[in-house]
């Protein structure tokens, strides 16, 4: 329901990446690279394959500090099943939310999705 374990895993991952980038004062790319590096050697190829796919999108989302909830809804690992409430972890502190209460959660997700699409188009070219 609402993305279940996949949503929880995504939320935790984005929260860790954002905090780690802050703590280490490093870029998102460096942080993601570090996360793959610290895994046991057997898992690194899978981690790198996942980063090749997800990395560019995560970079856009984390750089814009959209927070785990918006990021994971934009990546569609979290969603809202018909008749179910929308799940919010509320992990990032209030001061981290760039847009004020004037934007709804859905609008923030839409904006994040557009950012991803823009970045993807730019990467892929015409």
């Amino acid at each position: 329901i609402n993305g279940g374990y996949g949503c929880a895993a995504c939320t935790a991952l984005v929260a860790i990446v954002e905090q780690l980038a802050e703590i280490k004062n490093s870029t998102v790319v460096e942080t993601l690279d570090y996360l793959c590096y610290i895994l046991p050697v057997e898992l690194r190829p899978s981690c790198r394959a996942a980063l090749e796919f997800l990395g560019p999108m995560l970079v856009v989302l984390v750089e814009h500090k959209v927070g785990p909830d918006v990021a994971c809804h934009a990546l569609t690992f979290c969603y809202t099943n018909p008749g179910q409430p929308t799940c919010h972890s509320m992990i990032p502190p209030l001061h981290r939310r760039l847009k004020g209460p004037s934007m709804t959660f859905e609008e923030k997700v839409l904006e994040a999705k557009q950012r991803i699409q823009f970045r993807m188009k730019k990467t892929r070219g015409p």
Partner: protein
Amino acid sequence: QNICEVPGVKDICNWLRKAFKGRKPSVDFDNDMFSISQGLRGSSWRGKDCSDTSRNVYPGTKPLAEDRTFDSNCNGIFGVNKKTARSYEEELCGASQPRGVAVLGDSISAHFHMPPQWLDATLISEKVFEHLILVVENEIDWPMLSTVTGHGKNNWTEVITGPIDSLYLRIRDRNRCNHRDYQNIAANGEDSIGMQNLVKTLARNPQRDHPIIVLYALIGNDVCNGYPDTVAHMTTPQAMYDNTVNTLEHLHATLPNNSHVIMMGLADARILYNSMGHRIHPVATHWGHFTYGQFYDFMNCLQISPCSGWLTTNGTLRNLTAERAEELSEALRKVYRDHKKSYYNFDLHFIENPMPNAVREWVKHGGEAWQLIEPSDGFHSNQIGQALLAKVLWREFETKHPEILGPVNPNNEEIGRLFGNQGGY
């Protein structure tokens, strides 16, 4: 939408599914249910096999030909005393009434522990993932450090700290002939329904093996599920009674004479929310404001909570869950009253859940309840809690059911002198 379809993550998901599916040792060439490798239901869960090519050689069996030439029960004791011409097994263990210990249980018995360092950006490092493969192959459980089957040394201090104490270690200290005779037949999420099948993986031969002490410790999952209408999905007292009797019937057919089965009541886990609700979850240590209350609600919204009856901000629901848990404990007491004379291979016992006593003892010595709870899930007992439970259970057995434990072996010192660590683990 499915994270397991992402390239790379797909391989990891497949690996996780495979690791979590096994209930029997994966590496077991002679099919005796005991293994020479550690993970995948190997020696972390059951005493290490000392020959994986002979089906008659495994921990807990009665010695073959008195172990005069080789160690058939893997307790490290074999050979002949040249002075007396008697085998050491006969001389040192023959009259000692050896026995093993096993637990039929859930994630508490298996000792679920997801290292909080994996989630905490302030603590994450290469070191904390060093043993990730073994941890996953053990289903994120730590049976080798658990209340019933804990043994050996803690080689994972980067991700788990606290004392090791267990019923097995204490039973082994009492009689060193019991070395390696432990089985952890527990699984995450196991309840009385699933146990009717899982019990079939308990390896004991009624004729060839020593008696065994079996703890039936399904302390929560019959009231725990992740459904929003959680009460409707809880086990009913009648079903609890029937499922338990079915499992006991199986034990009756497989346990050696003079065994013991101890049924444990369910836990009242209201203490979890009361002690954890306002504390900060490790996934947001750096930002510092994501409470367990919020964490529980998020899990409930995604319907992946291990227990939406206990892990909820809804106090009424927590009270309803406590009520059902008590009803299910009463069903177990009724099983005891109705069936204590039914089984001739084992004596049946019932004990109340030891958690409240363990917490009381901890608080009495200046601790706080949250210090006994796993930080990553806010649900399970941590290493300190596991060791404390072993101490409390042991005290209960010593005072109320000393017959379960058997006599102290007067040859323990001699065994230590002759056989050292008895082959370790």
